């Protein structure tokens, strides 16, 4: 469980996050949604320790992560898996080396054990026979899957995904969403997903936080999001022609 407690964050004069409190639950896919510029990415960056909060606390279980120094934060960061928007795979490494990287850094496993773990996670993300390929040689969907494999290779307690299906076709996007949802259940991770894709919201939104102009505007789940009378949320949810038509029908 991750608890965000009254956090605020500003850049110069601009306040990006305003007194946000929310609980990301264990074993669930927790979604942060909102328009571009609403503060989703900043909130996630605060949660993973790439940005410091100005006010408030971020607690991982009972541990106050935001109170820690950089060095202390590293201990908790080793329990995190992060999927970045572009994958953030290391260009000079092969797929296998990318997935093996956290194992090389933080375990004392033998090469055989590491290879076995790499093959297991690659199989889990349905990526076989790509071990020796470089990131530049594989498709966008495959890059995301390798990034997921790398993120889960150390069996993390927390998984953060920043717009996991951006730039992907709807079919592949759905597969990625399903994969993240299944892995969350399988490893009982606290998964936090940053998205503005309504398909993801409907498909895997077990707990949803809607941010609007840096504030937590609404929270709920996929079952109630389409029935809400929150004006700003409805504007966001039914912003495309497709969702408007579905709503009319």
């Amino acid at each position, binding site marked *: 469980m991750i608890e965000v407690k009254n956090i605020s964050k500003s850049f110069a004069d601009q306040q990006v996050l305003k007194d946000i409190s929310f609980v990301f639950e264990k074993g669930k896919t927790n979604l942060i949604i909102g328009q571009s510029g609403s503060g989703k990415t900043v909130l996630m960056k605060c949660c993973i*320790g790439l940005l410091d909060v100005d006010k408030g606390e971020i607690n991982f279980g009972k541990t106050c992560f935001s109170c820690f120094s950089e060095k202390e934060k590293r*201990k908790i*960061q080793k329990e995190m898996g992060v999927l*970045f928007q*572009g994958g*953030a795979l290391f*260009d*000079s490494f092969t797929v296998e080396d990318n997935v093996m*990287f956290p194992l090389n850094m933080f375990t004392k496993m033998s090469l055989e054990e590491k290879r076995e773990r790499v093959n297991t996670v690659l199989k889990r993300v349905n990526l076989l026979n790509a071990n020796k390929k470089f990131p530049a040689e594989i498709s966008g969907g495959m890059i995301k899957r390798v990034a997921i494999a790398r993120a889960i290779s150390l069996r993390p307690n927390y998984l953060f995904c920043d717009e996991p299906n951006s730039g992907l076709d709807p079919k592949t996007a759905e597969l990625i969403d399903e994969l993240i949802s299944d892995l969350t259940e399988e490893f009982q991770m606290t998964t936090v997903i940053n998205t503005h894709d309504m398909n993801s919201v409907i498909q895997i939104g077990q707990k949803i936080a809607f941010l609007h102009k840096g504030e937590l505007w609404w929270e709920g789940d996929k079952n109630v999001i389409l029935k809400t009378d929150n004006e700003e949320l409805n504007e966001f949810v039914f912003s495309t022609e497709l969702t408007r038509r579905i709503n009319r029908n």
Partner: protein
Amino acid sequence: MKIIQEIGAYVWLMFQAFKRPDKGKVFRRQLMMDFQDLGTNSIGIVAVISLFTGAIIAIQMAYNIDSPLIPLKTIGFSTRQMMIVEFSPTIISLILAGKVGSSIASEIGTMRVTEQIDALKVMGINPANYLILPKITASMIYNPVLIVFSIVLGIFGGWLAMLVTGLSSSVVYIEGVRSWYDPFTITYAMIKTLVFAFIIASVSGYKGFYVKGGSVEVGRASTQAVVYSSILIIVFDLILTQMLLT
């Protein structure tokens, strides 16, 4: 004010970089890769430039010796001195600032804009230590080797030029090379090389590490890395020369 901020950020980055590596085996692997990228891959350009420059220095010396009172062995002596004292440590370092410096800045800068550095950080890895320390170490170990190689090739280039043009005999040239040798000049060249190697790798690493934006900014950082490294090399050349030779 901005320059003070930049110096502060540079010192902070170096402080982060010079920490004990998270894992020795991974550090050694990175170091080997950087030996290849920053050192071995520069042998070609260093060889060509040193060979030709040595030849040019020798020919120019030969044409400028008008007086019969100046012995012809001065050609060999001057070529050796110029290669050891200035050309190899300074000019080759400037060339490496262009080749290696831009490569370091663009590699690290691209890693920054594609979130690879963020990925390292959230894995609990010190990115400055993981990325910059092996490059500084590789440069400081490999550059002296390149500079010695450059000195030898430059002197050889001069000898080859004398042989082809007939401006001086081989024996006289070699006698000149062996004359009035002061071993301290090699120490002086090595000290300069080490300082310049540190400047090239650290300044370029710093410029790449703090890139913000996209490909245009990466290109700009790469150019700045070369410009800043080159200026610092010349400034430190003057300082070290004043300190060591006077």
